[in-house]
């Protein structure tokens, strides 16, 4: 294992331990709930970026993968109430398989046609869930979260820790992909698919890998959703916000590196959380919309790209 990889994994482990230590020190539940939402977006943005940023296939169906994770968990909770880690595994598995299947069916489509197909997927899934009465159908269902959990003083702290761990693992997965031959292959697909194929890049396998991993991470992010929100119904689980934010956050942070979605999600997610309890909510949407338009026009490589350019310019001036 390279020194860089070792250091990265150590930092990841330290962050997970740090998240646990925070729960032993801080009691204010608002920060846990707000942090949960921000961390959820770190996972979704990172997952979106594996397909959209690394491979160049824009997915508008984030809400579909997220909600499938959430509803897999709901179905399991209603059947035999397994522990949360199993819900995460099953949510990831179902959404991962969905990603694989959809990838197989739609990756022959390119550009905007692929994006429309993913959007349609979310709509179709929402219709299916709305008509599946076992998980509440269109009316929704209330989910009772466990009253206590070992090592944590309440379930909110536990959910925060779980989502922090998922976020760290997601970023680690994105980093490992980016630094491996897989990431370089994906970058080649993004830049010129035909040329990549001619050079021997296994494009179909890599694209399927990207849709599967991306879908699985989104499903894992969705699995604890019903415990977080307590009442789940299709309109909120399939909300367009998930698709818009998971696309906007990497765009704002930068789509070509693991750091971009992380920076974008933390920045925009935190701004949204602050706006929700300070400014009017119209401002909330305005923040995302304005940032998105601003970055697409003035900094198409996102914040990370912008800082890179500034640093390069400063370095050039010093030289």
């Amino acid at each position, binding site marked *: 294992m390279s020194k*860089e990889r070792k*250091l*990265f994994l150590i*930092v990841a482990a330290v962050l997970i331990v740090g998240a646990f230590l925070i729960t032993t020190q801080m*009691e*204010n*539940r*608002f920060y*846990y*709930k*707000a942090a949960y*939402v921000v961390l959820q977006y770190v996972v979704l943005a990172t997952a979106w970026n594996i397909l959209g940023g690394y491979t160049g296939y824009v997915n508008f169906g984030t809400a579909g993968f997220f909600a499938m994770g959430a509803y897999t968990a709901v179905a399991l909770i209603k059947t035999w109430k397994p522990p949360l880690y199993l819900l995460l595994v099953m949510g990831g598995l179902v959404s991962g398989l969905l990603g694989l299947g959809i990838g197989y069916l739609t990756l022959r489509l390119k550009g905007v046609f692929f994006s429309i197909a993913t959007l349609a997927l979310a709509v179709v899934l929402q*219709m299916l869930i*709305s*008509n599946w009465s076992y998980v509440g*159908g*269109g*009316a*929704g269902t*209330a989910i*009772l*979260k466990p009253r206590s959990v070992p090592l944590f003083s*309440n379930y*909110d702290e536990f959910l925060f820790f779980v989502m922090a761990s998922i976020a760290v693992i997601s970023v680690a997965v994105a980093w490992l992909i980016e630094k491996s031959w897989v990431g370089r292959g994906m970058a080649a697909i993004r830049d010129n698919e035909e040329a990549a194929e001619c050079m021997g890049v296994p494009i179909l396998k890599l694209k399927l890998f990207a849709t599967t991993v991306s879908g699985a991470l989104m499903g894992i992010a969705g699995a604890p*959703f019903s415990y*977080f*929100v*307590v*009442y*789940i*119904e299709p*309109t*909120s689980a399939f*909300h367009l*916000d998930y698709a818009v934010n998971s696309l906007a956050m990497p765009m704002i942070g930068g789509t070509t590196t693991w*750091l971009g979605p*992380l*920076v974008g999600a*933390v*920045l925009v997610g*935190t701004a949204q*959380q*602050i706006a*929700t*309890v*300070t400014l*009017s*909510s*119209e401002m*909330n949407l305005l923040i995302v919309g304005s940032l998105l338009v601003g970055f697409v026009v003035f900094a198409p490589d996102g914040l990370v790209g912008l800082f890179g350019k500034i640093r390069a310019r400063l370095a050039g001036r010093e030289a």
Partner: protein
Amino acid sequence: MGRIIRHVILGFALLLAVSIAFTPSAQAAKEVKIGFSMALTGPLGPAGKAALLAMQIWRDDVNAKGGLLGRKVKLVYYDDQTKPANVPGIYAKLLDVDKVDFIVSGYGTNLIVPALPIAMERGMVFMGLFGLDANAKFKYNNYFQIMPAGPDPIVDWSRGFFELAAKQKPRPKTIALLSADAEFARNAVAGARRNAKKYGFKIVYDKRYPFPGTSDFTPILRAVKATNPDLFYVGSYPGGSVGIVKAAHEIKLEPKLFGGGMVGLQYTAIQMNLGKLLNGITDYWFWAPEKTLKFPGIEAFLAKYQKEAPKQKLDPLGYYLPPFAYAYVQLLGNAIEATKSFDQAKIGAYIRNNTHSTVVGNVKFGKNGEWATSRTFQVQLQNITSNKMSEFSKAGKMVVVYPEEFKSGELIYPYAKGK
């Protein structure tokens, strides 16, 4: 690598500092703070804004009389954007950062349920605004819901419609059920289905239509007409209700009793849109300017509301939600005054064990914090001659035909006769 991580940590620290800077400082201890989330934007935004205005009128009324136990009332609220996912964070902020003394719910089942476990964990009294059986799973004894749907809300919602139908001679035999494919409408029609069986009506049509997304109801109503039902019970949302009424007129669908669970017909804007087309329809209702519903304080409240509502572009008459939004905080305030205490358990016990006089009448809570007995009115729209707003502010237009206790006129039967 190390530099990147330092930058990330620095970024986190900065964001934390910004969020702390935005947090309001500790408020004056003498205020009684009532916290809640409210849908001020999103699909329920217009109704949520009207509810907020009603609550602000109550706050001003109470403060004009010196507050609660000598402390002025302050409302602390955030917009949940009609998104259930925003609700847990908002209530955690209200309780842990704003340190509110009391919490009440936002508007609607989906936005009440996410806050209920938080109220339970803290042992707080939690007043609900228009939730349909929201406490069924939690069974929290300090939850009290102001919509008068009754102890078995799903069934009680349509009970009046069926009792009326069963009394008619010759007794109707068949019924068609139509529902929007979403939470409230499906529940309302599920209750209607049970009532249809109970009262022995044969269901000849039972279908859902996609919601949202259905704009042309003509083909659906043609299918209903083909079954020639005696009764037609509809569970619909405002847009669908308008479409269904117009389509029924277009194809001359004339069951003997028509309506039931159509949301929107109670809103002034929709009443003005439909005008005479509403005549003869029998629908659920919560308040109307009828002589039998002049509860203490309702007219004074509506006068204040109707003065302010046009400025804020809200429902100008405000008969549907605003009186109940006023009443659920009024009831909490009255309980605080009566117990002379801010103790949640004492206040909860007082609300649970007493009958309360409010602007929406006497309220007594029963199982799961719902009204002990249902008081969902069935109103038949009668004698509407124009689309003017003044038409709907007069008595004799929204005639209460059920229950007997509040009846203000007779049902015109069959529907075609009242058209």
